[in-house]
């Protein structure tokens, strides 16, 4: 039986890796998640036959509890996952990720409580948790506990912030100093767990780690949230890997560490795409440093255009590049945009979608939103592939995007956006910007593109403006 279980775990781990590999191409991605899902079902089923579980004194109670917990936790997640809107996907990922971190921390708690209990009843009277578990298991178990707990409480804060339930980004003065001290104290209690057989340090340790996760995440700005979520995802993977070592479970070690390293790389890629370093995300926030942003570059006037004229311009264009931003998704205009691009295509206009790496709430989020509306992925272009093409473009249609087309990221060293790669919409013959009002964008930075000679503003709600455009194009 033991062999069957171990082989099944190995197969599951292989399915996870192959599944992730297939998820890295849009053609095979769908199959990838199915394979990984099959691995998960296999691993879960064989675990019911694990001798560790079957040899327990309370085998029937425990198995019943396992089934109830899986039904409740899985049922809730199934329901919420099916129901969530695509725009709210990032916070749901944060939530599920936090659950994983919490599970890893809870596994460690059971092991540590068992060990401290055993040590306390040891005949020598001086046994410690480390003696019972062995140094390697104790160290990795405690490390997994702290990482998992931080990921748990941090992810919940990230979820609350993205879901609009928590807006504050300041808790205490000198937050970073306090966080550093808190981290040291937490590590102190971690050492206390290791060198004693008492339950008290375990309880205090978990409470401190929970608070630490909250303190780390609260100051992080909304725009940086994807990086934090990705980081917590990697951390949970690491915690799962460590607890896998504690339990001697190969599937957990492999899957956890694969996610830990893949997630770390993904975090770096995201931070790079947003022109932030990971350290930056923790220790600063765009826009929080006083209001020294406004002013420069905002000379000139915005030129308005009516939907009719914009429609004519686009109908006779040779190429239209649509640049969607999160504002489009908020206005639920993606279906209308797709309708517009279909009509334009029928008229012989070449239509492309240009996606900035950080369009939407996290890299790739906009692609998901467009895919939901039915836009095929081969009409969607990454920044590197489309930027050279803007000079061949008659109309660049910017909808709900702002900072990602802000030219001051390129030529204004005083801009907070300076250095961020942008879409060169300004190089198109005409730029039409659909925008709700005249204010600055998400980051509060003025956008000189809106005042450029070749830019026309189409003010109004995204969905309504696009409907008018469709109408205008159809009438021709």
């Amino acid at each position: 039986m033991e062999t069957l279980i171990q082989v099944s775990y190995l197969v599951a781990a292989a399915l996870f890796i192959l599944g992730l590999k297939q998820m890295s191409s849009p053609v095979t991605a769908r199959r990838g998640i199915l394979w990984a899902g099959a691995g998960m079902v296999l691993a879960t089923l064989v675990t019911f036959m694990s001798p560790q579980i079957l040899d327990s004194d309370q085998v029937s109670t425990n198995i019943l509890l396992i089934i109830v917990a899986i039904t409740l936790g899985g049922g809730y997640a199934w329901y919420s996952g099916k129901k969530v809107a695509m725009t709210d996907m990032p916070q749901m990922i944060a939530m599920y990720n936090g659950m994983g971190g919490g599970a890893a921390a809870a596994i460690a708690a059971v092991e540590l409580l068992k060990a401290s209990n055993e040590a306390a009843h040891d005949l020598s009277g001086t046994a410690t948790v480390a003696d019972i578990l062995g140094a390697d298991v104790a160290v990795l178990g405690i490390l997994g506990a702290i990482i998992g707990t931080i990921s748990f409480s941090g992810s919940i804060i990230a979820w609350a912030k993205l879901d609009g339930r928590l807006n504050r980004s300041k808790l205490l003065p000198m937050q970073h100093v306090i966080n550093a001290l808190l981290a040291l104290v937490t590590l102190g209690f971690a050492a206390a767990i290791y060198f004693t057989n008492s339950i008290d340090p375990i309880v205090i340790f978990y409470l401190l780690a929970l608070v630490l996760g909250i303190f780390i995440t609260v100051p992080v700005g909304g725009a940086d949230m994807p990086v934090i979520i990705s980081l917590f995802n990697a951390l949970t993977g690491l915690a799962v890997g460590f607890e896998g070592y504690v339990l001697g479970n190969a599937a957990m070690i492999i899957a956890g560490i694969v996610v830990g390293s893949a997630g770390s790389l993904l975090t770096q890629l995201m931070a790079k795409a947003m022109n932030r370093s990971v350290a930056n995300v923790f220790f600063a926030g765009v826009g929080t440093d006083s209001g020294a942003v406004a002013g420069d570059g905002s000379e000139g006037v915005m030129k308005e255009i009516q939907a009719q004229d914009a429609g004519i311009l686009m109908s006779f264009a040779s190429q239209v590049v649509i640049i969607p931003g999160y504002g489009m998704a908020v206005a639920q205009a993606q279906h209308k945009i797709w309708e517009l691009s279909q009509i334009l295509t029928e008229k012989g206009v070449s239509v492309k979608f240009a996606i900035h790496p950080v369009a939407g709430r996290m890299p790739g989020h906009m692609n998901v939103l467009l895919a939901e509306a039915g836009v095929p992925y081969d009409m969607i272009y990454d920044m590197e592939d489309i930027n050279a093409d803007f000079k061949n473009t008659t109309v660049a249609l910017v909808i709900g995007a702002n900072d990602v087309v802000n030219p001051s990221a390129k030529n204004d060293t005083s801009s907070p956006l300076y250095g961020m790669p942008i879409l060169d919409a300004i190089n198109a013959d005409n730029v039409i910007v659909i925008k709700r009002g005249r204010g600055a964008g998400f980051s509060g930075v003025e956008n000189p593109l809106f005042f450029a000679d070749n830019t026309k503003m189409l003010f109004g709600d995204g969905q309504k403006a696009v409907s008018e455009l469709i109408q205008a194009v159809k009438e021709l």
Partner: protein
Amino acid sequence: MIEGLAAIYIFMLAGFTGYEIISKVPVILHTPLMSGSNFVHGIVLVGAMVALGIAETGTEQIIGFIAVLLGAGNAVGGYVVTERMLEMFKPSDKQSKGEGS
């Protein structure tokens, strides 16, 4: 049981594997892939089942129960959202003529 040097080998190789998988991913798949890797660490459910399975005291059972509850949430939720996202990625069927990719 996996111990000592063998474990270090597994840690190292798994680390390289994860790095290798991600290094060539187009940006359009970052969110689904993050979601997918989020699902994969839902394997923590298996460990949580063992933790609850070996629980003897009431406290251990409560914590183990929470572990399984959270682990199942991670695995199932991660699967559902990833599947929903990837389901929507399809190539253009007919109207994409010419216009090399």
